[in-house]
């Protein structure tokens, strides 16, 4: 059965179960809901949850695990000579899946019977031509082993989804029946629903955590793979970044880190004072109408996609800076792309972020602090400087660290504004590049996926991940510590 219909069936069963559970509970007390242990809707929800949760849980797990198992089995059938490296195996496997899909299509259109699809042999039939007739184009002749693998793939997938349907329907039906049978006026449906809700929430939380874990693991594996091909100290301490896909690359991360650091520094130098001052204005001085208007506006600014800022850097800020500092005047700036361009625009991007976070933090300083200060004859700005900002300082530092980690991870503005040259220089008007921009350029070339020039992207990603993680942890730690102060 199709997954779509399976889901629909289970959902239908759940709806039916809700209604039946409710009715049955009410019937057990002759329609007087006061004698029920729980509200009638709880009995319905109980049946619905018992139908849904186990069935869907198993279905999701099955859908995740089945392709892994099938791939594994089928990959074993590919003879060694057809698949040498990891990259090639994945190519062969995608061929297998394509042939399998072609056979499916052929059966559907009646070009082949189910029997034929399962038994034809590449040795006797021109598969490519027959599939071509029905509109499935294959790039090369289908080898005997690929065809056999495709057939096994098909049959395993078919039986897998058949058994999945059976198991899921059984579970749904079983849950449905059990829950319905237990429905009775003394049954504590309310408490059971409570644990059902807990199970759903727990499931959601674990999916979030497991995904993160998966991402980190894939980063780690590929990074380890990279360090097997490229010496680790050359990566961390190398002063030159010059990848060449022909081999003999120098992949030192220092110039990239320097670019990242330099651009972030300029961005923060722009964003922190402006963001902080605007936050102070908004939270302490602005009349209500101004605040009601400006605060949402700032939040809209924070929602502009960074690619738009990138365009702004490329088309407006870069040329403007060049006209001021370029060859026509002082001659510091050779091209529109520079650390300054990217840093300024990134700073502008971060202003609403800093200001909105700081505004929340300043607002969290209790009114009693302000009253205390005014009551001693302090002016507004004395109060801000000597009481409010010191009280909010840890939180503001946290906000700045969060902004820094955003600056470090920013890509689009750098791609458009900073140029692509990895360089170690102090001149902010020179083009430089960052870790993120290089990850993009290393992965978007069409090099072999197992070469160090591509795998280095994962090492770069890992480096970035560790740096931002540390910053975020530090920021959260500081912010949390600050929160405790007023409890």
């Amino acid at each position: 059965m199709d997954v779509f219909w399976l889901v629909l069936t289970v959902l239908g069963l759940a709806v039916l179960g809700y209604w039946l559970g409710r009715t049955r509970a009410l019937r057990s007390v002759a329609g007087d809901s006061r004698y029920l242990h729980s509200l009638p809707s709880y009995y319905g929800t109980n049946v619905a949850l018992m139908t849904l949760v186990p069935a869907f849980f198993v279905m999701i797990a099955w859908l995740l695990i089945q392709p892994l198992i099938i791939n594994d089995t089928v990959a074993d059938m590919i003879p060694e000579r057809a698949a040498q490296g990891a990259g090639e195996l994945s190519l062969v496997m995608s061929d297998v899946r394509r042939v399998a899909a072609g056979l499916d299509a052929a059966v559907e259109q009646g070009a082949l019977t189910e029997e034929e699809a399962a038994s034809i042999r590449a040795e006797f039939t021109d598969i490519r031509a027959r599939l071509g007739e029905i509109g499935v184009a294959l790039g090369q002749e289908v080898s005997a082993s690929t065809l056999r693998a495709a057939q096994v793939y098909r049959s395993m997938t078919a039986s897998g989804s058949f058994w999945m349907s059976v198991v899921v329907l059984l579970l749904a039906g079983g849950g449905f029946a059990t829950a319905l049978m237990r429905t009775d006026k003394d049954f504590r449906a309310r408490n059971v629903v409570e644990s059902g809700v807990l199970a759903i929430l727990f499931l959601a939380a674990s999916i979030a955590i497991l995904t993160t874990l998966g991402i980190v693991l894939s980063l780690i594996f590929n990074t380890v793979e990279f360090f097997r091909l490229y010496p680790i100290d050359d990566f961390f301490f190398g002063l030159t970044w010059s990848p060449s896909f022909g081999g003999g690359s120098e992949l030192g991360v220092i110039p990239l880190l320097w670019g990242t650091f330099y651009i972030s520094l300029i961005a923060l130098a722009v964003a922190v004072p402006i963001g902080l001052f605007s936050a102070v204005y908004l939270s302490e001085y602005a009349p209500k109408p101004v605040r009601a208007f400006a605060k949402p506006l700032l939040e809209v600014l924070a929602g502009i996609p960074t690619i738009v800022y990138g365009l702004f850097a490329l088309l407006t800020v870069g040329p403007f800076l060049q006209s001021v500092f370029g060859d026509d005047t002082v001659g510091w700036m050779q091209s529109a792309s520079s650390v300054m361009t990217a840093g300024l625009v990134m700073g502008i991007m971060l202003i609403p972020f800093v200001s909105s976070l700081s505004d929340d933090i300043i607002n969290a300083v209790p009114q009693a602090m302000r009253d205390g200060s005014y009551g001693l004859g302090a002016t507004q700005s004395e109060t801000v400087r000597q009481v409010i900002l010191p009280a909010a300082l840890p939180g503001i530092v946290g906000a700045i660290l969060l902004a820094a980690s955003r600056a470090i991870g920013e890509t689009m503005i750098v791609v458009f504004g900073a140029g692509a040259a990895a360089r170690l220089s102090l001149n902010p008007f020179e083009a430089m590049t960052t870790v993120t921009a290089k990850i993009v350029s290393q992965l978007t070339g069409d090099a072999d996926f197992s070469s160090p020039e591509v795998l280095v992207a994962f090492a770069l990603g890992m480096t970035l991940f560790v740096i931002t993680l540390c910053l975020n942890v530090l920021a959260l730690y500081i912010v949390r510590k600050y929160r405790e102060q007023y409890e």
Partner: protein
Amino acid sequence: MYDAPTAAEQALQQHDIKISSRNVQVYYGDTHAIKDVDVDIEDKTVTAFIGPSGCGKSTFLRCLNRMNDTIDVARVEGEILLDGENIYDKKVDPVQLRARVGMVFQKPNPFPKSIYDNVAYGPRIHGMAKNRADLDEIVERALRRAALWDEVKDRMSAPGTGLSGGQQQRLCIARAVATEPEVLLMDEPASALDPIATSQIEELIDELRRNYAVVIVTHSMQQAARVSQKTAFFHLGNLVEYDDTSKIFTNPEDPRTESYITGRIG
């Protein structure tokens, strides 16, 4: 320096009027929170404001040092004279005024700074100390007057927020006293404290009377009876009765005062 005044002096001072209000109205937007209040607050006296919750005690207290200016919707009409000068006059700088009329709040609100910096806050802002030694002396004097010196003299650089509730409130009193105000306003200064801390604060208020006019808002009638010489009873924004504390508690003129004192309205 702070010798007790002689009996004759005290008798004289009893009649000095420190603050007098005439026809004071306060509005919060459309709400008329204080109606026609006339009151004369004497120097070197503890004056208690009592009355049921929401009757406007805090609002009126906040008029006396223009703290209501910090509330957007609040509007004050009428005259309040401090030493004969209208504090709502355009010439008067509310910031300067608040240095002369200090305030202690219901919940202890020490700044998240050291004990020393808390007390030194006002003197620093107003430039009251010539040098560090001078400032040290001001801080010590204020802490002594707030009966807190002995407890904190060894940990002046510890955060003020780390003290106990009663100590925090005395720190706030020291902080207010350090700016050498003429009047001290206290809005239910002991309502967040336990009985022992409360009695320490009450003793302190009695001490402070030697140097200041003290106005205290309280919801506890026993407290008003214990610490004050004059009592004002507010009800629904009106000043119902204002007289010597002993008179108010033993022989009130207005039936509303009597019902409040005897616990029939509250």
